[in-house]
């Protein structure tokens, strides 16, 4: 049985010599490391989480118990501490992921004024504690691009898989509590993907199909996640080199249908120059083939809830749109109008929105009747235009989550098919 070893600095925090909050953070991290069977902690200087945020349930829960106040949720929920502590500043660079509501168009999302004020208060709380306000699920497109080999403590499954696989940084899928504890300690359990021997591939995926569009990369990711669950797939096949947007959609899908936190694509991702390098010392435990039939099955699953062809709402930007995707949407919409029977919302980060404004993209989208929103998405905010029954999506991740969360019908297709649905108010697509 493994034992957890603490350094003098870690023991010091655990003993409370660096203050109550850091003691509670270290206690949580020790419970977590012991649950994992970790033997030590690793230092991190890159934390991405949602410190101090609160949904209405948490807000009411702590209010009912007379624990109102900004430190209360951080103490009792983030640190899982029974004691209320004064929350100090972050001791290492820490960033806030998606959450809350668009700071200007919050009313579009149907957010009530009291709830919006709460979001603002919590954002100010994070900023006062030296947390960078990125408000996006794509920190790697908004100013936090980790280096290869850097140890992170990141939440957001689609960002974790991107950081590990595409950038070669090292993080497990951390949670709300572990990232908030890391923010106050600079520590995270040295386990799993922090260790070289746990980053090698386990399953081989032979892609026997020309996967090229963003939608096709999303379907491949959905298939892979379903097949390997939380293991590490290695892809090889006759596809063109995927770009950032395709890798973003592939990873988001694989971490939704399964729990994939890392993948390799031979000749593309940094720890897979060759098949041998991707697998390291162990051969694949299983091999799956992905061909036309497998792709069709994924397509049918992602469209399983779609029956009515009148589309009320089209959502793009899951994960948050890259500037290239906003450019594409603007091109497809140029000179057209969103149907009076349909809404088109596109979600992105504040950083990318600012770039889109400077490039004139925001104006083109606005002239066509599309709404560009930041900070959140329909699944996260549980927000769709009033009366929405049928949605169209170009993201396998959003198609996986939205019907489960809001009980709507979902159509899944290409970005072009989605924009076309927004303009005509009807779903029309070719099964690939």
């Amino acid at each position, binding site marked *: 049985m493994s034992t957890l070893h603490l350094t003098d600095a870690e023991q010091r925090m655990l003993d409370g010599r660096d203050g109550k909050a850091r003691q509670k953070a270290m206690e949580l991290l020790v419970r*977590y490391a012991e649950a994992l069977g970790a033997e030590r902690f690793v230092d991190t200087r890159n934390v991405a989480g949602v410190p101090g945020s609160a949904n209405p349930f948490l807000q009411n829960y702590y209010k009912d118990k007379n624990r109102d106040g900004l430190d209360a949720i951080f103490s009792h929920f983030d640190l*899982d501490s029974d004691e209320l502590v004064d929350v100090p500043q972050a001791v290492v660079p820490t960033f806030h992921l998606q959450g809350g509501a668009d700071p200007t168009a919050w009313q579009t999302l149907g957010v009530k004024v009291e709830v919006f004020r709460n979001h603002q208060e919590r954002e100010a709380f994070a900023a006062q504690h030296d947390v960078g306000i990125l408000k996006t699920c794509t920190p790697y497109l908004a100013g936090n691009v980790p280096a290869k080999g850097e140890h992170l403590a990141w939440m957001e499954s689609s960002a974790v898989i991107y950081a590990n696989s595409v950038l070669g940084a090292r993080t*497990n899928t*951390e949670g709300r*509590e572990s990232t908030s504890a890391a923010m106050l300690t600079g520590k995270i359990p040295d*386990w799993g993907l922090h260790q070289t021997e746990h980053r090698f591939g386990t399953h081989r995926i032979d892609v026997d199909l020309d996967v090229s569009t963003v939608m096709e990369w999303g379907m491949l990711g959905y298939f892979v996640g379903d097949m390997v669950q*939380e293991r590490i797939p290695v892809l090889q096949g006759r596809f063109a080199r995927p770009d950032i947007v395709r890798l973003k959609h592939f990873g988001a899908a694989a971490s939704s249908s*399964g*729990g994939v936190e890392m993948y390799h694509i031979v000749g593309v991702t940094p720890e897979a120059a060759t098949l041998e390098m991707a697998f390291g010392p162990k051969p694949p435990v299983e091999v799956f083939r992905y061909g036309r039939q497998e792709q069709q099955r994924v397509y049918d*699953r992602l469209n399983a809830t779609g029956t009515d062809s009148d589309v009320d709402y089209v959502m793009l930007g899951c994960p948050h749109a890259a500037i290239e995707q906003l450019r594409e949407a603007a091109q497809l919409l140029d000179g057209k109008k969103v149907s009076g029977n349909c809404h088109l919302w596109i979600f992105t980060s504040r950083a990318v929105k600012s770039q889109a404004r400077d490039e004139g993209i925001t104006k083109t989208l606005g002239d066509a009747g599309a709404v560009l929103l930041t900070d959140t998405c329909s699944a996260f905010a549980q927000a769709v235009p009033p009366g929405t029954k049928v949605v169209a999506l170009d993201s396998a991740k959003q198609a996986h989550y939205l019907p489960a969360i809001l009980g709507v019908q979902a159509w899944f297709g290409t970005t072009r098919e989605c924009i076309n649905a927004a303009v005509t108010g009807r779903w029309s697509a070719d099964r690939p």
Partner: protein
Amino acid sequence: MTVAATIVLRGRKVVGGRAEGEALVTRQTIPGWGGVNPVQGVITETQHELRGVSFKDKVLVCRGAKGSSGWSAMYHTARLAGTAPKALVFNEMTTKIALGAVVMRIPSVTDFDRDPLDIIETGDWVIVDGDRGLVEVVKRSASRS
């Protein structure tokens, strides 16, 4: 009359403590954010075999966890809402299920000498001793005879 047969599985402590309850078993991984309603204590993922099923006060026996990094926060919320499972028995260790078990503060065991999914069925009575890493299973079929 037959004596109820008790099967003992030996594993590793994840979270200590002792609890017992009726088993809820799935070979699938358990979703977190976006696939569960923590206030109601119900799985909501559209394609999950436990869709609509409550895990409140059950001994949840599963392969492991999947999906979002909001996993721990969802089950942490379930604890506050009073809908959390009583104990957790699982095969595949991930950071999601480890942190989730910690913040649910329920006895949890993994790394078994035999696969609990081959032995425990939904409805069996299960006693989880987290500190000793022991899981006792009283088969429903045996306890009824």
